[in-house]
């Protein structure tokens, strides 16, 4: 019994703690979008909410960094995001340029100021 549990436990956790609590938002989205059409004024608001949540995720991942990223000083992470943003604006709003510049700044900063 306990051998079976140790085999299947993680998969049950994946469904109950990972899949369902995440997927339920997508299902609710399907329900709430019924009756809305592309031109609905409310969609401008919904998109604004989605964008603001996304920006919140971005800032939280940068400031309260997960895993080994937390070993890079917060100031380096913030400066690296700023470098990425500057490169993005300077190089024709290129996502690629912004990501590369941000990653390079993070690596240089971590090597210079990390422990």
């Amino acid at each position, binding site marked *: 019994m306990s051998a079976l549990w140790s085999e299947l436990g993680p998969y049950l956790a994946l469904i109950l703690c990972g899949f369902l609590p995440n997927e339920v938002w997508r299902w609710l989205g399907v329900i709430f979008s019924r009756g809305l059409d592309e031109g609905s004024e409310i*969609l*401008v608001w919904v998109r604004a909410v989605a964008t603001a*949540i996304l920006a*919140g995720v971005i800032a939280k991942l940068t400031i309260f960094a997960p895993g080994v990223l937390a070993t*890079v000083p917060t100031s380096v*992470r913030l400066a690296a995001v700023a470098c990425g943003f500057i490169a993005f604006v300077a190089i024709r709003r290129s996502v690629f340029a*912004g990501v590369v510049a941000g990653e390079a700044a993070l690596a240089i900063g971590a090597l210079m100021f990390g422990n």
Partner: protein
Amino acid sequence: MSSAGPQPTSTLAAYLAGLRATWTSVFSYVLFGTYIGIGALAHDFGFSILWAVLSTVLIWAGPAQVILISTLGAGASWIAVAVAVGLSGVRLLPMVVALLPTIKQPATNAWKLVIPAHFTAVSMWVEALRLLPTVPRENRIAYCNGLGCGYLVTATSATVTGFYLAAKLPPLMSAGLLFLTPLAFLMSTLRNSRMLVDFLSIGFGLVLGPLFAWWELGLDLMWSGIVGGTAAYMIHRFREALQ
């Protein structure tokens, strides 16, 4: 290649056009890097390769997977893990609500929307909103499923790669892979921004997200979305009323 894109005529052609669009998308590279990090994380916390792959296919949301793996692996209670994952997934609701009205037709059965809804993640959402205007409406569901499948295949192969690379990744590289998500999310959201309301939403969310989290408000992401998004929308309406 022309930027106007092909005009698919059949469902299959539209699906393949969506699939092909992912090959030249910067998100494929970002997803590959991100999911190498997630595969390595799953390995380090002692999960199996099958578990890691299933988490990518079933959850299909980077931040939720990072939370699930690190909290479950650290021995947190199932309830606490489910709540943390559920809170990180709030963003999917408004994203799905914003996307589906642009791809469905009056007669579309709701069940046909469950699959594009499952594929909805930041990568697919941002690219779909950018590319869909060039796709005829009757082909948009298939096109979105193609986009989603393309990204999912990339992410799944990266999960496997990361799982087996885990022991060989230097810490600085693992840190860099985890850093890909906030960088790519920020740049792609900025690139898709056209109107004042978009830029205001980004600005408010960037400030309110960490502020509400720091105050330990609970449901901080949801509140930063509702407060930040509503404020941005009201400024947008006020400005329109003035003109």
